[in-house]
């Protein structure tokens, strides 16, 4: 009982001193709570579907940010990992008869292997060359998919995968919980020492090498981690849609994830996640004007990137929060003194 009281008190203290002091953290808390409570309030299968798909794409977008945003390894062929995850899960499910809770992690591990396959030849490449090389990989895989229709289903893909659950609510919770956990892990990784090295590699790889850090290892780690989470997203997508088809490897899929990440703010993890939860429902909302749907979407994206080049969410965050000039801790913009060091904010 005392232990419970201790933990409750600790949670309350963290909430009071760490979370409720910053608007961005309050938003994240509300996001977690609303995602977990949504099915209790909303009983609309269409809305739930949109949230489920947004959750899957949120993992996918965050995984791109982990690789390209943090490490600077610009990947224009991120659909490769998504597609590998989707196809591997589908093949294991349909051919080997394995259940989804086995196929999805195994699919993600195959995507990790794909990360190594892509990462190793790309180690010597940078910038535009790297981007163009990575763009080629899903196209190569697409060719392989069509070359072995007996295994991959060719242009039809593999259909009839087992559902995550027969209940929509349970499916929702499985996917949303995986999304929340995955994104938290990715955020924690980027917030750790590894994340700092990722940052450093992006800013000046030579300097990192000079500091005695094996950048090859870290770059490969970024490819593998990113591949793992994108593979998880692909596996979830395949089981949710009950089909893994060539569309999972299309260029559109790769560019979509870049748009999500740049719109939300790269090198943040939470930026791409937030962007997905804004853009996916927005695209559905634009169905009200079907002729102008794509145009409106493009207009919104261009407008945001034009006026908020760092991404929408970092822009909003910088409006409501300020960094303390002395201790660099973030504070609510309305505060006159820093919440930690009590220095004057202006």
């Amino acid at each position: 009982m005392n232990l419970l009281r201790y933990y409750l008190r600790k949670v309350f203290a963290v909430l009071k001193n760490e979370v409720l002091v910053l608007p961005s953290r309050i938003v994240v808390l509300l996001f977690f709570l609303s995602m977990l409570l949504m099915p209790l309030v909303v009983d609309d299968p269409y809305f739930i579907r949109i949230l489920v798909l947004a959750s899957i794409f949120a993992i996918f977008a965050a995984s791109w940010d982990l690789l390209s945003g943090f490490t600077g390894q610009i990947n224009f062929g991120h659909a490769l990992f998504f597609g590998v995850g989707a196809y591997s899960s589908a093949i294991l499910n349909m051919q080997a008869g394995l259940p989804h809770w086995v196929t999805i992690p195994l699919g993600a591990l195959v995507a990790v292997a794909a990360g190594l396959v892509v990462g190793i030849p790309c180690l010597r490449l940078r910038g535009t060359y790297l981007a163009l090389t990575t763009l080629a990989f899903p196209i190569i895989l697409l060719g392989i998919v069509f070359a072995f229709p007996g295994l991959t289903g060719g242009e039809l893909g593999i259909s009839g995968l087992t559902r995550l659950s027969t209940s929509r609510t349970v499916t929702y919770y499985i996917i949303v919980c995986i999304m929340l956990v995955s994104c938290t892990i990715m955020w924690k990784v980027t917030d750790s020492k590894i994340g700092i090295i990722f940052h450093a590699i992006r800013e000046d790889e030579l300097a990192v090498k000079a500091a005695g850090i094996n950048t090859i290892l870290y770059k490969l780690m970024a490819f593998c981690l990113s591949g793992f989470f994108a593979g998880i997203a692909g596996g979830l997508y395949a089981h949710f849609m009950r089909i893994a088809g060539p569309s999972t490897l299309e260029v559109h899929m790769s560019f979509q994830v870049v748009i999500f990440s740049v719109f939300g703010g790269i090198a943040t993890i939470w930026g791409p996640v937030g962007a997905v939860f804004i853009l996916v429902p927005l695209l559905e909302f634009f169905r009200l004007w079907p002729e102008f749907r794509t145009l409106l979407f493009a207009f919104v994206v261009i407008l945001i990137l034009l006026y908020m080049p760092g991404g929408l969410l970092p822009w909003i965050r910088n409006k409501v929060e300020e960094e303390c000039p002395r201790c660099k801790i973030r504070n609510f913009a309305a505060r006159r003194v820093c919440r930690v060091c009590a220095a004057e904010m202006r």
Partner: protein
Amino acid sequence: MKKIRSYWVILLVCALALTVSVPAWAKDTIKIGVIGPMQFVQGKGHWNGAVMAMEEINAAGGVNVGGKKMKIELVQADSNEFLNVTDATNAMELLMTRHKVDFVVGGFRTEAVMAMQDIAMEYKKIFFGAGAAHPELCLRVAQDYDTYKYFFRAAPFNSNYLVRSSFLHLQFVAGILKSQLNIPNMKVAIVAEKAMWADPMVTAAEGVIPKFGMEVAGVWRPSPVATDVTAELSAIQRSGAQVIFTIFSSSVGIPFARQAGELKIPAVQVGINVEAQKDSFWEATQGQGNYIFTMNTYSREVEQNELTAPFVNAYVERFGETPTYTADTYAAIKHSLVTAIEKAGTLNADKLVEVIRDQVVKTPTGVVQYMKDDQGRYLHELTWGPGYLLGLGVQWQDGKMAGVWPNKFKASAEAPEISYTGMVDYIIPPWVAEAYKK
């Protein structure tokens, strides 16, 4: 007075409860979802066909559902399936849950249709597929009937039959060349756009053409979006091919026809050229597409039966173009669905499935009857062949899309000849006739 007022309140509450709990009582329209890539010509065909069906049915007083006349209401859903399969499934979910449609027609890209099919089946809604030709869609019906029985193919007939039709067209044209130009060893150049859907057709053509007594002169695979195909055409000319068997669904069909006409390549074109199925083909090729032969569904000049001309003429008048096969949403709604509803007297999907699967209805393209597979299982697949649906072979003749096949076509030696009204003779391009005149 108080008592009377409370009676009124009870009555009102009961009426309200009935309205909410038994929506069918208040329902006076049949909602049909039309799903397709609405920003593309295929989706526009879906929508236009459905609009025509709705207007005609509603003008005639509506659908007789067990003695009650109900009007048709259409709901458009842009699947955006060429670009995004996820979008297509969202559109289907929207139709099912927000718009609460009773039936769905449309779909084009097979991968997307399969995903959409799963959603429609989950909600037990009848879905007429009017675009994807892959047999797998109907194989699912046979393999898991309880789940997939709500899916029916509306158009086109499945890809196996599309291939068989195009081979019949090849034999037809080769036969004319043989008889009129006395070419003993016919050579055929296979030209298929570099796309996956065309691969099995190329393999099949390579296997079948020698069996027809012809030689394969070579296989050429230009890009689907190629704008210059003179290299391929020169190579074909050097190969000595008299016939070019085309397999095009993309824009390459236009430059291929135009440049072949400009260069006066001495070989006739026959097969599938989707661009040549459109009214705009003549202008797009600046008249150089003259004498191009392609498989098609409709032609302004041809009447498969008495229903064709009224439909095609009304369509042309309403939308200013000849209908394409995705406009067969018209036949799916007007002839298959409404006929079944009026016969069954209900909107109950299970009861309607039992009627549709066994009914035989005449549509503007022919007679629709659903097939069973070899094991006698319901496939919900369109029957192809004489007396049912056969398709058309059209040739561009001086700016007009003329029907040339079936013209005195006999499926077997004993079978009766089949010709549609408005058929004309196939014309060998003059420069081809000139090249092989002896």
